[in-house]
């Protein structure tokens, strides 16, 4: 039972983080720090990513072919690894959005939980 709870919690966290990353990348390529800031800004600070939560997930998503990272020049002559939404990621985003919308609707029906 404990394992199950932990597993559900992990899956929910990972699923919501994947949705957040895919959603911000749908607007255009961003490097890791920009992804974290963009999510933080768009959720008004509710969702925050740090090194430990962002990069392992990005690497997993890259392996699944959802995002593609490439080193590119950034302002100031620096190089940053920019992530783009791959076609598989774009395809994944559609059902992921629907799943989360359904989850919020179900929670709303169950406990009167509403989302923004």
């Amino acid at each position, binding site marked *: 039972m404990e394992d199950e709870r932990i597993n559900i919690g992990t899956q929910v966290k990972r699923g919501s983080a994947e949705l957040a990353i895919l959603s911000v990348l749908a607007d255009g390529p961003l*490097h*890791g*720090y920009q992804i*974290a*800031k963009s999510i933080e800004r768009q959720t008004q600070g509710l969702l925050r990513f*740090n*090194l*430990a939560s*962002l*990069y*392992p*997930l990005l*690497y*997993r998503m890259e*392996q*699944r*072919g959802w995002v593609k990272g490439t*080193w590119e020049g950034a302002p100031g002559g*620096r*190089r*940053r*690894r920019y992530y783009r939404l791959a076609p*598989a990621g774009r395809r994944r985003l559609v059902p992921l959005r629907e799943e989360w919308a359904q989850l919020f609707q179900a929670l709303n029906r169950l406990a009167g939980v509403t989302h923004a």
Partner: protein
Amino acid sequence: MPDWQEMIRPKLAPLGLDAKREEEIIAELAAHLEDFHEDLVRQGKSQSEAAELAFSAAADWDALRREIQAAANEEVIMNYRLGPAGKRRLKTFWLPGACTGALSGILLRLLQMPSAPSPHIFWPTPGMPFVFYWHWLLCLPLVGGIGAYWSRHAGGKLRARALAASSPALAWLCFPGIFLPFVLVFQWIVHHNALLVPAALFLLGWVILPEAALLLGALPFFRGHTAESRPVAATH
């Protein structure tokens, strides 16, 4: 400005990845900390305070190292097992091919039962009969059709559909066919008899004719696109 890479490297080592990938990860994490540090300085923090805050961003370096290793292991496992191309091959060739192989094997076994119609038996050389299951050949177009339909439905292109339909004949070609040349050479050396007629009959009865029958059944499914093999229009 702190040397972020030098600060991160001992915290993450050893990641156990190949050197190039490890350096890329360290460079990327260092770039993140550099941007974070600059943001903090812009917000009014002192250089040292910002550096300390930025470096504590990872909070738990051991956990970060384990997570990166887990992600990398998933990468290795996925690459080793099935990448996107492997999954496509599995769906469009291996599964329908295994299905046609199994179906043709089951049919052949059924036709070998005592109650089944008798096969044709030839005696191309004395003491060496050749059994020709013509009922089996008549059933093979259906088997080939099932394989090609499955492959097309899974998004298989023409080659995958043809291979999926042909898998029973390919199996006969690959397994017994591999040993055939050795048997022929052995026979020639030992008995001065190349057994060319039985070998040709074997190829005809178990490879060429079944292949033709399988492809005949598959023919209607060589046409038409599926959702995955059809060119996708750009969307915005």
